Structures are given as structure tokens and as C-alpha cells.
């Protein structure tokens, strides 16, 4: 049943994404793009882009988006409930343990080792998104016809702006989008 599948997929995403922000991204990708193939790599990239532009956590945004696309409003509810259920249990239990013992050594030890792993996983998901953006057919190859030169230029420009100026993520993304729209209009093709 599709509602149960959505529920359990997002249950796993909710239960194993530690560290907030982009930490959910590799898990969403594994479940939604690679596993169930509910979204294509391009749709996934668009979803992450939209998530950046709208309020709310990436995982909740993804749950609503994928749920609605796959099974309508009820699908969105099933996916979202799955996504936040682990949080409800874990945080409440932790709040209880914390008020009682005020000691979270083991948890902090686990988290210390999770942080570098999460960085690596986000890097991997980021590389996939970069490949989708820069290579026309979505695979790395040195064939020049397969490289979108404009996309590569916007990427480098965006990275330089982010590192060298105080511009935030959303202005940089909007700028890249506007540049591509203007240039493709001027050239008369997409």
C-alpha cells in the first residue's frame, strides 16, 4: 500500500538524519531517488532548490512534496507523520533522561563520530546534484557536448560569491537563476 510505503520511507529518513540542515538530504536521495524512484535526479534537485526558497526543514518539505506527487494530500500526511514520528519519540525520551540524569556521555560519543560521517554523506549527495546540474545527460564524461558550460560558469561564480562575499545562499541562487533565464532568453533557447 502506497501510504504505508511513504510512511516507512520517511520514518527511516526521520530516524537516521542526525545534525539538521542538509543531513536529511543523502537519506532522502537514497530512499526517494535510488530506492523507490519516486523522483528523478532532476526533480530531486528542484525539490532541494525549492526547499531552500521556502520556510521549513528539508525533510518536512520533501515529505509533503513527494507525498502529494505520489498519492495526493493523504500521501503528504502519511509521509510527514512518518518523518516527524522518530523525532517525537527520541526528543521526548531524551528530555526525560536528561532531566533525570543530566548525563549524555554515550550519546555525545556517538554524535562525535556521526558528524564526520554526515559531512561525507552530504558531500556525496552534493556531488550528485552538481553532476546533474553540469552534465547534460546526468553522467560524468569528458565529452564536451555533454558539459553545460553555462551551468559550470554559474556554479563557479556562485561558489566564489559564497566564499569571498557575505552574500547568503538564497541571493546567490536567485542570481544564478536570473542569469540563466536572461542568457537563455537572449540566445533564444533553453
Amino acid at each position, binding site marked *: 500500500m502506497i501510504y504505508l510505503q511513504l510512511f516507512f520511507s520517511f520514518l527511516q529518513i526521520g530516524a537516521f538524519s542526525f545534525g539538521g540542515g542538509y543531513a536529511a538530504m543523502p537519506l532522502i536521495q537514497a530512499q526517494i531517488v535510488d530506492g523507490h524512484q519516486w523522483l528523478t535526479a532532476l526533480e530531486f534537485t528542484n525539490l532541494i532548490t525549492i526547499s531552500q526558497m521556502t520556510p521549513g526543514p528539508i525533510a518536512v518539505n520533501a515529505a509533503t512534496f513527494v507525498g502529494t506527487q505520489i498519492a495526493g494530500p493523504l500521501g503528504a500526511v502519511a509521509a510527514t507523520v512518518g518523518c516527524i514520528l522518530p523525532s517525537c519519540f527520541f526528543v521526548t525520551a531524551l528530555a526525560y533522561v536528561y532531566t533525570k540524569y543530566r548525563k549524555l556521555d554515550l550519546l555525545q560519543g556517538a554524535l562525535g563520530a556521526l558528524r564526520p*560521517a554526515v559531512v561525507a554523506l552530504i558531500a556525496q549527495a552534493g556531488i550528485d546534484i552538481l553532476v546533474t546540474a553540469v552534465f547534460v545527460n546526468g553522467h560524468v564524461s569528458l565529452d564536451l557536448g555533454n558539459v553545460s558550460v553555462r551551468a559550470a560558469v554559474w556554479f563557479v561564480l556562485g561558489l566564489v560569491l559564497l566564499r569571498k562575499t557575505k552574500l547568503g545562499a538564497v541571493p546567490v541562487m536567485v542570481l544564478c537563476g536570473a542569469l540563466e533565464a536572461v542568457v537563455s532568453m537572449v540566445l533564444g533557447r533553453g
Partner: protein
Amino acid sequence: MEKKSTVLKKLFFSTFSLSMFTFGGGYVIISLMKTKFVDQLHWIDEEEMLDMTAIAQSSPGAIAVNGAIVVGYKLAGLPGVLVSVFGAVLPPMVILSIVSLCYDAFIANPVVASVLKGMESGISAVIVSVVWDMGAGIVKQKSVFSAAIMIGSFLACMVWKVNVVLIILTAAALGIVRTLVAEKRGRRK
């Protein structure tokens, strides 16, 4: 403190408005929560808020949702959890439902499609920049253990295509073993 139904109502509207107007992820919402619940409403004291932030960050899931849960639990128990989670989740649900319903018409528009195409490059740059900062933070620890986990995890997912959940569980288990060993050594000294 005020009547319970008043607290629940205020809790709902607080988490709802925080979630509605917060762009930029969990760490932003935590500092806004502090402003709201510590500085404005005086429902939570500063030190408690620090502990609650630690709990929200240590738990799996979105930090904004975790923050709402821990604040709700502290202020009104389980009904508080339900009310504040509902308030925090409602705005993104409504907005993304609308986006999702309009997505096909939206994406068929050539101007929108080329804006999104350009933004793909933008989001790639954002993620690379985030990873850069996070990776530099790990390298700065000068810990062989952390570096090994980072490189091992990267190879595991990129080259060997190991399941993401398995990588996370392995890293957590290694961290727990390491803490236990360190504690044992500490006791022997």
C-alpha cells in the same frame, strides 16, 4: 503561569509563526525560539534553553521540529508536544502542497525552467560551500579518528555504494565503542 489552554494556544501560534517566517534552517529557528520563549514570554530560562538546544541537536530529524517538541514538552507535557509540532509542521506542509500541485504547470513554463536550471548550479555551489565549512571544522579537530570516519564514509557511499543508514549506524557504533574504551581507561588511571 497562565492557564493551560492559553499556554497551548500561545504555543501553537508561536511555533506556527516561527516556522512560517524562518528561512535558512534549524540553527536559525533555535535562536528565534530563544528570543520568543526566553526573552519575550519568559517561559524558559536561559540555561534551560541551552540544554534544550543540545537535545534538539542531538536527536535525529529536523532541528526546527525537535526544538518545537522539546519546548512543547517542557511547557505543557504531551499535549504541548502535539500542539507545537502541529504548529511547526503546518506552514511547510501547506506551502509545499501548493508548490507540488502547481509543479507540472510551473515546470512547463520555459522561463521558470531556465530559472530553475540556473538555480541548480546555485544550490550546487551552496552545498559545496556548506561541505567545505563542515569539512574544515572536522579537519581542524586534528583527530585521526574523525578524519578516518570522514574518509571511510565518503569511500563507502561514493565508491562502494554502501547503504546510507548502514554508514550512519556504523559511525555511531564506533563512537560509542570509543567512548566506552576511553571511560574504562579513565577509570584505571
